[in-house]
């Protein structure tokens, strides 16, 4: 008969005789397990700076809007490609005159405590937003609604505002004029429903924890109308201001998606991460703005054109900025509805452009003996500093312009740019609030608080006013003419279009590049 002796298995741990050494090893293992601790099915996303507020009526920053789109849902929402889809509203109808929109609410729409979302909650939200005591910075977006402007200025009662709950599941919005982009506007948090306090959420996720300067933790909302479609259990948005720090955390395996990438390291990142690096067109423009109310740029078109032509945009974007930016010759970014898919650019070669720039420069009354002395003003940022140095060098080399680069702290810059008393050329830029060319062009209307060029042009204003009351292709044509007008007048020097830049881990599914750079967590999952 065969007998088997079972010998106890000796674990490596047993070989360690000293209790002190065992305790040490245990401590190391504990630290190791804590370091490697991975919560299952939690998506870790970089957020950028701390959001200014998670109150739907106070939030303004991009980071706040990203989190709020996970926590709440408006009448209209986005799919993974950031195209409009019905949100809390099942559908809507528009009156013949285009001024009354009626929304049918989805009867399965629920707050995070299971209570139904009703039309009156939208009315309550808009009333709170428009109440001057709330101090909402984004409420101006509602100005297209009847009575909204008067109400936010404290000149009308809340009842005078054109939003009504005609039935518990039916909402009517009355506009001062037809607004083709209203559906897009209704994706903005300032239009979301309000349940009387900030502890209830109408979106696919709900707030679980918030530590300022660290992270915002969300949990899937079981009462959300399409809760079964959410694949993630939780989402953790990490507040990380420095792109280099964010990159380190991504490389250390702590993030699935980054908010951005550090500037000037594109080739290295491409080599290191391959397909995980996602660079895509984005509806944003970067430009330099002339101050038209001061010498030397007031009434000097030739000089403005000369300075624009002397800048080699390809060189600037490829060699100086190097984070995927696209050279720009227009204000409205390509891909905007009614606009071409790519910037047609300037058909001349760079050498021809420079020759023309030199001719115009002389025509404007400047020469080597009498060079232009100008200030180029920008706020503190590595990318801006590089841009300014390159632009100044190009102007000097081709025209002999003497540029003083003025780097200002953010708030000082914003105040100076706004007052326009000492500025000559300032850096400008705009990112689309919604997919509509008017969103960019309105910056240059005479009465716009955002018109840092102080350019006042009756023809441009007329085209914009006409576009405001037109619709369809006619409206787009008027907007194109308006853009043409301001480009001909060289109100600004377009330099480049922004691109969205993310690192997306191979385990993440459902992330689709899109022009708005909006990626709701509800469409994302982990392999």
């Amino acid at each position, binding site marked *: 008969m065969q007998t088997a002796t079972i010998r106890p298995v000796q674990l490596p741990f047993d070989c360690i005789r000293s209790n002190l050494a065992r305790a040490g090893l245990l401590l190391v293992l504990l630290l*190791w397990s804590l370091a490697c601790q991975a919560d299952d099915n939690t998506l870790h996303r970089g957020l950028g700076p701390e959001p200014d507020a998670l109150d739907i009526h106070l939030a303004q920053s991009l980071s706040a809007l990203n989190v709020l789109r996970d926590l709440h849902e408006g009448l209209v929402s986005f799919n993974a490609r950031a195209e409009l889809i019905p949100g809390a509203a099942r559908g809507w109808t528009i009156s013949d005159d285009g001024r009354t929109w009626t929304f049918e609410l989805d009867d399965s729409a629920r707050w995070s405590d299971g209570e139904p979302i009703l039309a009156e909650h939208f009315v309550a939200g808009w009333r709170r937003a428009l109440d001057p005591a709330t101090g909402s910075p984004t409420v101006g977006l509602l100005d297209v609604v009847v009575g909204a402007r008067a109400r936010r200025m404290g000149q009308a009662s809340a009842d005078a505002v054109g939003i009504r709950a005609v039935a518990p599941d039916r909402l009517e919005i009355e506009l001062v004029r037809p607004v083709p982009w209203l559906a897009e506007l209704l994706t903005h948090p300032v239009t979301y429903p309000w349940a009387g306090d900030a502890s209830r959420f109408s979106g696919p996720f709900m707030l679980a924890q918030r530590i*300022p300067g660290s992270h915002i933790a969300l949990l899937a909302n079981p009462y959300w109308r399409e809760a079964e479609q959410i694949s993630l259990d939780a989402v953790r948005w990490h507040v990380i201001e420095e792109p280099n*720090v964010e990159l380190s955390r991504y490389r250390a395996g702590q993030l699935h998606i980054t908010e951005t990438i550090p500037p000037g390291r594109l080739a290295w990142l491409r080599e290191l991460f391959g397909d995980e690096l996602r660079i895509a067109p984005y509806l944003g423009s970067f430009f330099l703005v002339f101050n038209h109310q001061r010498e030397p740029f007031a009434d000097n078109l030739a000089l403005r054109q000369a300075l624009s032509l002397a800048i080699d945009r390809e060189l600037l974007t490829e060699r100086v900025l190097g984070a995927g930016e696209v050279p720009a010759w227009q204000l409205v970014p390509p891909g905007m509805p009614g606009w071409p898919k790519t910037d047609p650019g300037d058909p001349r070669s760079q050498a021809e452009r420079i020759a023309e720039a030199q001719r115009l420069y002389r025509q404007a009354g400047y020469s080597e003996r009498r060079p232009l002395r100008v200030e180029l003003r920008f706020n503190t940022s590595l990318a801006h500093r590089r841009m300014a140095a390159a632009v100044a060098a190009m102007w000097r080399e081709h025209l002999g312009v003497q540029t003083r680069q003025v780097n200002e702290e953010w708030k000082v810059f914003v105040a100076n740019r706004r007052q326009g008393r000492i500025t000559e050329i300032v850096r400008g830029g705009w990112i689309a609030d919604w997919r509509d060319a008017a969103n960019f062009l309105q910056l240059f209307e005479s009465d716009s*608080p955002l018109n840092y060029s102080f350019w006042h042009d009756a023809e441009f204003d007329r085209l914009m006013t006409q576009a405001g009351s037109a619709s369809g292709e006619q409206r787009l044509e008027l907007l194109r003419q308006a853009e043409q007008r301001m480009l001909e007048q060289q109100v600004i020097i377009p330099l480049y279009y922004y691109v969205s830049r993310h690192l997306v881990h191979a385990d993440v599914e459902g992330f689709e590049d899109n022009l708005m750079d909006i990626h709701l967590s509800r469409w994302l999952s982990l392999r």
Partner: protein
Amino acid sequence: MLNFSLKRLASAVPTLFLLITFAFFLIRIAPGGPFDSERALPPEIEANLAAKYHLDEPLLFQYGRYLWQIVRLDFGPSFHYLDWTVNDLIAQGAPVSFTLGALALILALLIGIPIGAWAAFRQNRPADYSVMSIAMIGISVPNFVMAPLLILLFAIILGWLPAGGWEFTPSRMVLPVVTLALPMIAYIARITRGSMIEVLHSSFIRTARAKGMPEKDVLIHHALKPALLPVISYLGPAAAAILTGSVVVERIFTIPGIGSYFVQGALNRDYTLVMGVVILYGILIILFNFLVDLLYAWLDPRIRYDDAEIGP
């Protein structure tokens, strides 16, 4: 001693008052306001915001209102982080900064003092030179170089520790604490060495040695205590600074302490947040300098603060 303590505490009140007054008006002199942003707001909306935060009142009125708030320990709402009051932000961030700072301080003392003393004991020998050279490197290499190097090595290459983020767990604390402690270790080691050398040459040490006392006892029982006086003077302001967080370390390791509020608050013109952290820092500086003076008396029998006890 009681007299001295009461006097010191009484003098802290006008000091703090002056600090609050200067800070209040200085931050308001800076161009730009808390609600200036890339997207300039329509004037009516700006007026609504100004009214909500009482910024439309005359400055002296605002100052009076602020002093009254401070008396009630209410630092007001943050102008930039709109969901929070300054009390909230400090209450959430201070424990993190205090923990990190205290751990770094303890680590720096535990390592800095022994190696400084040892270097003094081995003065002008290879051990002394090597310790002091390493200390010099520790002082010279700034945090913003050391922190990314530590992250690269321990988080990215070796994968032993997280690259950043905060929890009250050892794995999250190791790298930031070490980064904060390294330059302090170097400072403390250099200060200890210098003062220890001076003490070792003094007559009471010669006497102890002449009596045949073992060298170890001379060092620990007689030389160390007086040699620590300069370290203690250094520790007062250093402790206040390190406990209120480090901008660089907090940003690189994404730690939610209060260090970054000093810079972010000023850049955002977040008037109330700047005031909150300045007052906290002021209180800590006053408190630690007071504690240093008390420690002095304990360490050096020649120092007495009450007039009657001053020796010849």
